[in-house]
């Protein structure tokens, strides 16, 4: 026999204190007695009776102590006599991949399960539980060979659901009604059972005839675990040979300081950037690394933390499609009073913002623009190009923007004809009419990333706010009164109003930082998705021009493939992904040809490996849930029998005391 709360046995000493005090403090009358002969004769006659009763009283007191101790210490027998049907559930959520001294939590759970198979004399059914309850051995069987074989093949899943879901799914099934005992082997983080109330409610619905036991396979209090929650690229765009800004959101899964860890970015398997990280208790932080993509085209990107207890959440996969070149078409409008080498300025600014080989720059006249082909153009830069609705320029530019093209337009006047022509409706507001100048200046500084630019250099004259733009997305800058509006319209246009570049006005507008800011603005407006990655819960994929005639497969870079099902037709067509597939880089192939590539990432929902809060489980325990480590595995109903025995002891002792009390009074 052992005890769930072994330390509670020390409580015996505390129980002895009041007993001792009671005995010591008990009053007695001391008499010097003369008629001792008759007292002695009485004692001789009554000695046996008194001795027996004293013995019974002693026994009742001992029973009382034993009963209280048993109730607190909760003893259990290492019984192997369990014969009833046993429903075993093994937690296969990602957190069960946490490493122990030997193997993982899942390995240990499997060992315990095999141990249970050997000892259990009745039939068993085995299920695994990640996000759903899946049969391992679907029906009760006594075939220990089959049980061992199937348990040995249990593997981790990539997603997790909570305890309430588990209990609910157990109740939904048909097996639990036959189970004399339900055992769940898992790690039981608090994120798994929440505040415990829902679990208690669910457990209360299980009959007492089907007691549930949770066996915690890992009771270590100090598990180290950092995890990567998200990886993304910032909106500057990614160009070959130029450092990109890669934001990695990391978190500490433990309620204590983490040890120092190394965060790395790997491009096509090669580490290109790294940084040491250290987080406080449960802290989240975004770390920006600057990987360099040496060539255009899709690249496999991995963010990795060095190893801790749980390695599955130490990696994040993504695919970055690096543009081959930025194809720019510059359009020269009406020259100003004095000739101005705008073409030189624009080219110089773009060239400084992009690596040389990434820029395909060409300049045309408005007439050429109106008749030219924009299919091979990414960005149109217009200088002093005035146009109105129905003009040839507008007729060319609007479809270009609609299909995702970018435009930076330096406009000569302060009217909105050009905006209207492009379908952008807005009005001019003064800074004090809804625009926070200070916030705006700070935003501009961050936007420009120009160390030479000071807040006091930024004078905000007025703002152009379009009906579908948010006020804080309108960024204004300039020292001589030009108005710049970034249009958050869902179209790739940046319009610069009220500005005519001419000599003597400064070349601020052609500052490389300014042009780069314009570029970023255009890219943001285009909602550019630089990183192709999901959050581990992707169930479907939408691609253009999906046809039922084609065969679509999902192929992992690390090996393995899945046939994909096409659902829907036309614009509603989508590819249905498997319910679960391992994290990694995946290609979507259409008839063997790559159509898309993305990173599939592990679910980090249960990555908080903190110590179990037994207090939160108290309501469920009151409802009959047994919870504890491996030793509770052998407790089961035997514990309940002993607890019942303890209660009987207690009642017997109390009844005896009551009986003795009335007996004394009757005398």
């Amino acid at each position, binding site marked *: 026999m052992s005890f769930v709360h072994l330390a509670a046995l020390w409580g015996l000493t505390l129980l002895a204190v009041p007993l001792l005090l009671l005995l010591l403090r*008990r*009053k*007695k*009358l*001391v*008499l*010097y*007695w*003369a*008629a*001792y*002969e*008759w*007292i*002695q*004769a*009485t*004692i001789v*006659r*009554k000695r046996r*009776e*008194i001795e027996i*009763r004293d013995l019974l009283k002693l026994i009742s007191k001992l029973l009382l102590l034993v009963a209280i101790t048993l109730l607190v210490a909760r003893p259990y027998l290492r019984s192997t006599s369990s014969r009833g049907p046993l429903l075993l559930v093994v937690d296969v959520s990602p957190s069960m991949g946490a490493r122990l001294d030997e193997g993982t939590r899942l390995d240990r759970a499997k060992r315990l399960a095999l141990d249970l198979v050997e000892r259990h004399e009745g039939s068993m059914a085995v299920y695994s539980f990640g996000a759903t309850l899946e049969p391992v051995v679907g029906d009760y069987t006594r075939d220990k060979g089959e049980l061992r074989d199937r348990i040995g093949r249990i593997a981790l899943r990539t997603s997790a659901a909570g305890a309430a879901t588990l209990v609910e799914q157990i109740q939904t099934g048909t097996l639990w009604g036959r189970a004399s005992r339900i055992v769940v082997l898992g790690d039981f983080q608090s994120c798994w059972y929440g505040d415990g109330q829902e679990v208690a409610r669910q457990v209360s619905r299980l009959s007492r005839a089907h007691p549930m036991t949770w066996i915690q396979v890992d009771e270590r209090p100090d598990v180290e675990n950092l995890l990567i929650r998200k990886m993304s690229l910032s909106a500057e765009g990614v160009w070959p040979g130029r450092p990109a800004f890669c934001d990695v959101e990391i978190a500490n899964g433990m309620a204590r300081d983490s040890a120092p860890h190394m965060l790395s970015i790997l491009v096509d398997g090669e580490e290109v950037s790294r940084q040491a990280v250290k987080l406080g208790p449960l802290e989240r932080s975004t770390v920006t690394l600057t990987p360099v993509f040496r060539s255009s085209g899709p690249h496999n990107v991995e963010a990795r933390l060095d190893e801790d207890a749980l390695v599955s959440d130490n990696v994040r996969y993504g695919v970055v499609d690096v543009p081959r070149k930025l194809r720019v078409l510059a359009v020269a409008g009406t020259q100003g009073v004095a000739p101005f080498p705008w073409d030189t300025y624009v080219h110089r600014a773009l060239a400084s913002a992009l690596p040389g080989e990434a820029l395909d720059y060409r300049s045309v006249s408005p007439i050429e623009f109106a008749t030219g082909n924009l299919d091979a153009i990414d960005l149109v830069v217009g200088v002093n190009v005035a146009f109105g609705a129905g003009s040839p320029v507008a007729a060319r530019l609007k479809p270009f923007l609609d299909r995702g093209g970018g435009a930076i337009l330096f406009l000569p006047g302060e009217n909105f004809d050009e905006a209207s022509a492009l379908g952008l409706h807005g009005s001019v507001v003064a800074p004090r009419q809804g625009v926070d100048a200070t916030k705006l200046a700070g935003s501009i500084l961050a936007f420009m990333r120009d160390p030479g630019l000071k807040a006091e250099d930024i004078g905000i004259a007025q703002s152009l706010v379009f009906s579908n733009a948010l006020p804080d997305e309108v960024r204004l800058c300039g020292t001589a009164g030009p108005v710049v509006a970034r249009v958050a319209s869902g179209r790739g246009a940046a319009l610069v109003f009220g500005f005519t570049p001419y000599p003597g006005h400064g070349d601020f507008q052609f500052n490389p930082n300014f042009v780069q800011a314009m570029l970023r603005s255009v890219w943001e407006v285009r909602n550019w998705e630089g990183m192709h990655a999901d959050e581990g819960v992707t169930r479907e994929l939408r691609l253009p021009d999906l046809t039922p005639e084609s065969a679509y497969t999902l192929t992992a870079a690390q090996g393995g493939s899945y046939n994909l099902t096409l659902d829907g037709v036309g614009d509603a067509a989508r590819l249905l992904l498997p319910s679960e597939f391992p994290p990694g880089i995946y290609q979507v192939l259409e008839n063997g040809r790559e159509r898309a590539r993305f990173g599939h990432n592990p679910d980090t929902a249960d990555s908080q490996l903190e110590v179990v809060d037994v207090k939160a489980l108290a309501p469920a325990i009151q409802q009959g849930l047994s919870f504890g480590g491996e030793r509770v595995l052998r407790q089961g109903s035997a514990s309940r029998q002993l607890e019942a025995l303890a209660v009987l002891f207690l009642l017997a002792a109390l009844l005896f005391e009551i009986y003795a009390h009335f007996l*004394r009074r009757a*005398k």
Partner: protein
Amino acid sequence: MPETTSRLIKYLDPDAVARIAAVGFKPSNRVEGSRVGNHRSPFHGFAVEFAGHRQYVPGDDPRHIDWKVYYKAGRYMTKQYELETNFVAHLVIDVSESMKFAYRSGSKADYAAFVGVALAHAVVAQSDQAAVTFFAEQALETFPPSNADEVPDKISRYMEHAPLKDRTSIGSVLSLLAERIGRRKVVFVISDFFGDVDATFDGVKRLADNKNEVILLHLLDPLEIDFSYPGRVELIELEGTRRDTFEGRDIRDSYNELFGKYLERMREESRRHQVDYVRCSTGENFGITLAKYLNTRSLGQGGRT
């Protein structure tokens, strides 16, 4: 205030003395006294009360020849008269250690002192003599017969400083007393009689055989008669070294039964030896108890209750 008076105040209860004096003590049997008194003597003499005739023998005083009988019967007969004398009351007071016992009421020794002083006072007051013997295992102190008023004082003084030690050995003490006091005396034995009953009544028998009138005043504490204390109690033997702790309620019935048998035997033995047996509870007023006993005697019902 004289010293004697102050001592008398301690053990002399005026109320009890008054009650006893109102009844007085008259021996049931004839007594032998050394002086003329108010009680019948076994000896015949020449006094007022005619007792009978007897044959004249030479040497008799011829003045006591009843000539009327001579004229009628032709024989010389002398007249016999009852001799009236005083009596000697021997107060035999137990001062063994068991007399210390007291629970809520006074100790048995105090009670014995009160009884002894009251009886002595009553005896002396009616011009009889009182002798006192204090005893434990043996006679410790003896005051010879005296009708002086100082007898109660002596008793009081002794009892005030009585050692109250040693066991009771009442049988041997009474046997020795029987040899010493002779015949036809009144003997009050004031004791708790905790000892061998057979030995006790051996001594009593010796006294009774000498035609002494023996009155046993059995002093007991109410708790000794009825062990009614229900709680936990530790008893330490007064005349020994034993001690036991138990719940009073556990032994009450059995003790009361055994002690009741002992009391019954005391009564039966007293009846058998034709001695008076008076049980005195220290919880009761001894004046009332004694007066009741004396009243019973004077009504001729005998004191052997």
